[in-house]
C-alpha cells in the first residue's frame, strides 16, 4: 500500500471537501485544513463506505474515490443546504 503521491493527496482533499467530509477552507483566514481534520474526514468517509477506517488515503480508499458516483455530497450540513437554497433563490 504505497503512500499516496502528493497530487493524489491534494486530489483526495478536494474529493473530501466536495462530498461534504471536509468543510471548505475558511476564505477569511485562508486557514488550511489541519492534518487531524483531514484524518478525521478520511475516517468518516471510510466508515460511510464500509471500508476499514485507517484515516489514511490507502489504496482501497483511493480506489473508491475514483469510482463513478452521484455528484451530490454524502454529508449535507444544514448550513450547506441553506446556502444551496439561498443560491437557488438568487
Amino acid at each position, binding site marked *: 500500500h504505497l503512500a499516496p503521491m502528493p497530487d493524489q493527496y491534494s486530489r483526495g482533499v478536494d474529493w473530501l471537501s466536495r462530498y461534504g467530509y471536509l468543510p471548505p477552507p475558511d476564505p477569511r483566514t485562508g486557514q488550511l485544513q489541519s492534518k487531524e481534520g483531514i484524518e478525521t474526514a478520511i475516517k468518516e468517509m471510510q*466508515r*460511510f463506505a464500509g471500508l476499514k477506517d485507517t484515516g489514511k488515503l490507502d489504496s482501497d480508499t483511493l480506489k473508491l474515490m475514483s469510482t*463513478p*458516483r*452521484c*455528484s*451530490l455530497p*454524502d454529508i449535507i450540513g444544514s448550513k450547506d443546504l441553506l446556502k444551496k437554497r439561498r443560491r437557488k433563490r438568487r
Partner: protein
Amino acid sequence: YATVGLRWKKSDLTWSIQNYPSLYPFLKPDDVKSIMIYAFKAWSDVTNLNFQAAPPTSEQDRADIKISFARSLHDDGYPFDGKGGTLAHAFFPGEYEVAGDTHFDDEESWTYGDDSGTDLFAVAVHEFGHALGLSHSSTSPSIMRPYYQGAVAVDIRSYILPDDDRYAIQSLYGKKISPSAPSPKNPTSQLPKPPNTPHPKVPLKPDPSIQNRCEGGFDAVANIRGEVFFFKGPYFWRIQRSRSLVSLQPALIKNFWIGLPPGTNKIDAVYERKSDSRIIFFIGSQYWVFKDTVAMSGYPRPLSDWGMISHDGKEVKSVEAAFIWAHNGKTYIFSGGEFWRFSEAEQRHQDAGYPRFSSLWKGVPSNPDDIITEEEGDAYFFKNNSYWVVKSGEMDQDSVTRRSTAVDWMRCPEPTPTTLPGNPRGREGECNCGISG
C-alpha cells in the same frame, strides 16, 4: 439512510424528459421513457406518491421533475466532469424552480441491461430518491449509496427497493395504503415494451418423475450467497439460508442462469468467488463467469486458463468439484483424483506444490460430485446421495460420518433400513456400507 428534511407537499408529481442521451449506444427515447417510468415506480410502489408524465405540451417545462442529459457546465452551478467520475445529480424537493430536477451526465454511455456502460435505470432510481428528499445512505444494500453499483435489476419491471430505502422514503411520505397499487398507467400501451431483458420465462413444469430430488446423483453443488444450489441434468434445486427448499420441484437452469449453451444437460462444478461475488460455472473444458444470474461477456473461456497439469503431465480436460475453503479463503479444484489450490484475492494464481492427491482428504470420496463450504468453515463433500463433513481446517480427521443428502438437504423421508444380501450387518435391519459403497 438519511433525509434532508425537505419533501414535496403533494403526492401527485409530474415529470418530463427535456432531451435524450447523445452518446452510443443511443438508447431510444421510448426506452428512456420506459426506464424512467419504472424508476419512478420503484418509489411509488411503497408510498402513496403518484408520478405522471407531463403531456408533451408547454406543460413539459412546468413539470415538477424535469429530467435532462447535460454535459460539463450546464448552468446549475454543479458541472459534470466527462466520462466516469460524477454520473448525475438531482435537486431536493422545494418551491424553487429547479427543485426535483434531475440531470444525467451526457458524456456517460447510458445503457440498460448490460454491463458495457452505465446502467440508466440504477442511476435514475438513485437520483429520484434525491428528488424526493433522500440523501446518501451508508447502508448496504441501498440504492442511495453514493457509489455506482452496476445494474440493480435483471428485469426493471419487478425491481423492489432495498429495505433501507423503503424505510427512508416511507419516513417522508408514509406507507402505501391504497389496496392495489395503481401500476403506471399501462405504460406498455402508451409506450413500447421496456427493452427486452433476458428475464426468466415461466419454467415449464419439469416432469418430477424424471428429476426425483430424493435420488441424489447431483452433478454440481454450490453455496451462492448463502443459498445452496443442487444442479442435476438441465435442472436445479435451491435451498435458502434457512435450509428450506425453495420448491420441491426443480427449476430449469436455462430459465435462470442466462448465458450457458442451449441444451446444457450437465454442469460439472460451480462456486462463488468471494473476492468479487462472481459465480464460476465449469462445463467440460470450458468455464463461464457470471455476474449475478447472467454470464459476463467474453465467456466461455478454455479451462487451460487455469494451468492445471496432472501428475502424469496431462492438461486437465474437465473439473469434478470446486470450492473456496472458508477457513483459508483458498480456491480448491478437484479432477481425476487430484486437486489444485489457487489464491484469487487479487489475480488468480496457482499455489506452488500442487496438484496433490485427493486421498489426502481422509474419510471422504476422492472423486466427489462437488464440494461446498459454509460460513463456519466446514467443508461438505457430496457423492451420489451422501455427503461428508470435513471440519474447518482439517483434512485428516479420524472419523468422518457419511450422511444422507436426500434426508438432510432434500427433505426426503428417511430410507427404510433394508437387509441387503451379502452385506456385513450389525443388528438386524442395519447395513454398514464402506465409503465406496
